């Protein structure tokens, strides 16, 4: 720490810090455009000029390191003159038509011009005009307004890891643009909207729909992944107009994934269920809440009276709030059924009793940025948890060795250490080989391991093991694909063992925005709230395979959200009575449901999400739900009362929260478990289908967010296969292919894709075209269409 003086006030500053950082900490305003605390220093706008004693010229505060005894003046005549001149210079080419600019009212340039500029312009000459380019459905451009601060360019290079925007040309001819007419593709692209200090880059969906002074700000939390990014939600007349990040250094820093930012557009989708719907004598009719809730309660009672509560099951989405999940399981358990599940994308429950009270990241989100070694198993983290991917990228750029075991060669935006790409079944052998290499290096023996090592142990395996063993701050992370894997239990067992042997942390990347909350609330067949012991019920697959008479669905669209949509739709179609608490009404749902009770989405209700690191984040509703839609916790409360169960007299969701939180007070996460050699079933033969839930197909909201669906990252399902697989299966590398497994079949286009290892094909889940396909990570039949 050194002492410096700014405007006569002595402050302490970190050695090596820039003057602007010290001033920011001390709350002294220095104008700036190009400086941003999360980006490298460019010092190209010169707006931050200040006077420093004994230095002749004014100096840029963003690029001048503090030195002991330095005396800085930000408002001296010399500093003011410099700031005014820079402002005049910046305004030479900038249009002065703020009333027609979308940034008007929240523009840094407008504000700085007011605070630090002259009041009259001396400039009468013509101004430069820059042609706009269409850079995609998320970001609108108005490049004549650009002041060339290059924040957006540096963001691409340094944070997003994809340099999509650049600054071609020189001098007057320099402009910010993508190469040719390309749409930007980064999953984090929307952040440039916040970074751009002027109206050059603005939000396309929000543009010209509101003025900042008409908006009311609320706080919320994103439900789309286990980061739980903090949001500021701007509403006008109880309608959400836009979503921007709320800074939280420990969670999302100053960033949002595009999914977090633009999914609000799905609040006003035409599919929104606006009134309660019930099916009477095969006919759907809109009705009032009393009728609908009584209808739903009566239907459930009928099943219980006839076949007992064990013939009733409940399935919940892991983006439901903790309060909703808690009430759902409470209702079911009070009715006498333990068939509750939220893990509709998992397939292997063989080790569920060995699972911790909630599987968690094993460390804080922030600490991922300072890892020195990591092994990711079954993860496309960049698309599954974009902001965790960003943290890992920061670690990798600082030299961490991040290695992978994946069923396909996903693109990563950072240098990857070792890469083991193998078929789904092969992934196990690869991980076992790394465990074996670690055991060898530690001189340990792991009983029963050898049978799992189906590949030769090579230098790559040894290198991964060594990087973990030598790491001071290492981790093994199991991603979403590991969780969906049919041998997920074995992967978990091996992962924990590897972490133990190499003395690093073991982490699970929670699949959904509130998976951790769902575990804690007890939305599970084998555990109650806070991991308490209960009479074990059926997992989702057992429910569907045994064919229950009645189902309660919370927030789910099983035809898209379940890993086996074919099985789910078959079972739901066959069920006698299905109540869907759903924000959206769809033809598929009308096929199997008997009542559709419209619920509020996350921006319309109060609730709590628990993120992947176990952080409880509560939020209030920001906007009114449309039509008759109601928060799901209120509907569950009424159902609880109508079904004559005790303990549903809550006045507010905070009372529900207090109850769950009270129960969870002493729950401490621990991902560890003792080694027990996993036994594996026979590996699938023939061509195996690899799958994942792509970034813009993960949940009903994201799937209906039109701007996201228009990006290059969306798109319909296809069969991706490498040349070798195509040749072996006698398929051409274009055209369409018939895909079948058991009774389910569909037809999809073929895409030649060398990222998929031989012997497997990749077909996305959750996308249009994949609804009726089962068999994730199982063998499938392909024939040329």
């Amino acid at each position: 720490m050194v002492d410096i003086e700014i405007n006569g006030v002595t402050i302490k500053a970190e050695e090596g810090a820039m003057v602007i950082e010290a001033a920011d900490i001390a709350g002294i305003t220095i104008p700036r455009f190009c400086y941003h605390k999360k980006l490298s220093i460019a010092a190209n706008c010169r707006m931050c000029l200040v006077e420093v004693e004994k230095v002749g010229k004014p100096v840029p505060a963003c690029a001048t390191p503090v030195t002991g005894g330095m005396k800085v003046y930000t408002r001296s005549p010399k500093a003011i003159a410099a700031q005014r001149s820079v402002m005049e210079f910046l305004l030479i080419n900038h249009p002065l038509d703020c009333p027609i600019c979308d940034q008007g009212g929240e523009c840094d340039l407008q504000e700085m011009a007011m605070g630090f500029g002259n009041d009259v312009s001396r400039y009468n000459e013509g101004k430069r005009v820059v042609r706009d380019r269409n850079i995609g459905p998320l970001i609108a451009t108005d490049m004549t307004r650009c002041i060339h601060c290059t924040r957006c360019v540096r963001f691409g290079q340094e944070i997003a890891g994809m340099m999509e925007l650049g600054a071609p040309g020189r001098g007057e001819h320099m402009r910010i643009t993508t190469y040719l007419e390309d749409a930007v593709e980064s999953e984090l692209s929307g952040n440039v909207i916040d970074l751009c200090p002027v109206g050059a880059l603005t939000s396309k969906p929000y543009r010209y729909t509101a003025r900042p002074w008409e908006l009311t700000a609320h706080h919320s939390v994103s439900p789309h992944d286990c980061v739980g990014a903090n949001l500021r939600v701007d509403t006008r007349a109880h309608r959400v107009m836009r979503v921007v990040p709320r800074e939280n250094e420990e969670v999302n820093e100053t960033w949002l994934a595009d999914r977090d930012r633009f999914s609000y557009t799905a609040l006003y989708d035409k599919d929104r269920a606006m009134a309660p719907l019930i099916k009477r004598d095969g006919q759907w009719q809109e009705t009032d809440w009393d009728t609908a809730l009584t209808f739903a309660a009566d239907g459930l009672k009928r099943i219980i009276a006839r076949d007992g509560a064990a013939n009733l099951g409940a399935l919940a989405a892991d983006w439901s709030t903790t309060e909703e999940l808690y009430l759902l399981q409470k209702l079911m358990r009070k009715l006498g059924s333990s068939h509750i599940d939220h893990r509709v994308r998992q397939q292997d429950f063989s080790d569920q009793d060995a699972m911790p009270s909630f599987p968690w990241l094993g460390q804080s989100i922030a600490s991922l940025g300072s890892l020195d070694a990591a092994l990711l198993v079954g993860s496309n983290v960049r698309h599954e948890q974009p902001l965790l991917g960003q943290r890992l990228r920061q670690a990798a750029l600082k030299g961490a060795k991040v290695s992978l075991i994946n069923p396909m060669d996903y693109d990563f935006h950072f240098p990857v250490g070792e890469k083991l790409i193998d078929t789904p079944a092969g992934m196990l052998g690869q991980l076992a080989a790394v465990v074996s290499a670690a055991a060898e290096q530690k001189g340990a023996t792991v009983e029963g391991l050898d049978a799992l090592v189906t590949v030769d142990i090579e230098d790559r395996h040894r290198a991964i093991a060594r990087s973990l063993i030598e790491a001071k701050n290492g981790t093994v992370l199991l991603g979403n694909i590991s969780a969906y894997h049919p041998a997920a239990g074995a992967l978990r067992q091996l992962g924990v063992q590897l972490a133990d042997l190499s003395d690093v942390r073991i982490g699970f990347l929670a699949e959904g925005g509130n998976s951790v909350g769902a575990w804690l609330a007890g939305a599970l067949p084998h555990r109650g709230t806070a991991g308490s012991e209960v009479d074990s019920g059926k997992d989702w697959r057992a429910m569907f395979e045994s064919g229950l008479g009645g189902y309660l669905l919370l927030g789910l669209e099983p035809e898209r959200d379940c890993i086996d949509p074919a099985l789910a739709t078959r079972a739901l179609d066959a069920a006698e009575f299905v109540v869907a608490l759903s924000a959206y009404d769809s033809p598929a749902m009308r096929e199997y449901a008997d009542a559709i009770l419209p619920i509020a989405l996350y921006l319309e209700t109060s609730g709590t999400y628990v993120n992947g690191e176990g952080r409880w984040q509560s939020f209030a509703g920001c906007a009114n739900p449309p039509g008759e839609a109601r928060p799901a916790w209120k509907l569950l409360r009424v159902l609880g009362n109508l079904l004559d169960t005790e303990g549903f007299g809550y006045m507010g969701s905070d009372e529900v929260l207090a109850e769950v939180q009270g129960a969870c007070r002493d729950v401490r996460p621990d991902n560890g478990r003792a080694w027990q050699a996993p036994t594996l079933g026979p590996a699938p033969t023939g061509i195996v289908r690899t799958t994942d839930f792509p970034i813009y197909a993960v949940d009903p909201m994201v799937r209906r967010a039109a701007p996201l669906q228009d990006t290059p990252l969306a798109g319909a399902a296809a069969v991706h296969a490498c040349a070798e697989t195509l040749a072996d299966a006698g398929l051409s590398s274009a055209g369409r292919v018939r895909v079948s497994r058991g009774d389910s079949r569909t037809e999809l286009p073929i895409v030649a894709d060398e990222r998929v290892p031989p012997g497997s094909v990749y077909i996305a889940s959750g996308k249009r075209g994949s609804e009726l396909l089962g068999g994730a990570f199982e063998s499938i039949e392909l024939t040329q269409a």
Partner: protein
Amino acid sequence: MAQPGNIELLTPDTRAEIDDWIAKYPSDQQQSAVMAALRIAQEQNEGYLTDALIGAIAAYLDMPTVAVYEVATFYSMYELNPVGRHKLSICTNISCMLRGSDEVVEHLEKRLGIKLGESTADGKFTLKEVECLGACVNAPMLQLGREYIENLTPETLDRLLDTLE
């Protein structure tokens, strides 16, 4: 997103020459060769670069395409449109201006019947205005290919043009 560039568009000779430049830099810094690579590719293609060639260089040097494009648009020696066989790059910066570059431009424009930035219909000549080329001592000057022609007068210009095929 930009299709990954096709490095096959660079001839084996071009690639060999770029490799010579890459070898001059530390092993993980092949992007330092970008300026040379653009020049070499431009020579391969009758003096100008295409989008496809820029993409090919990006792929060859493992750089973002837009970053290569930045370099190609920053320096005046790269051409992004077809040019004549002889490109006359006339300096009009301060020293040359003081020593009569205006007359040089006027003379060339009149004799070739084209304006600065244009090419003759027969594809023989291109006139280009450039900034200071560091030959102020012998201003006014122009650059032709790799050569500087200095102390220009209408007579020396005429003689020069007569010798060009």
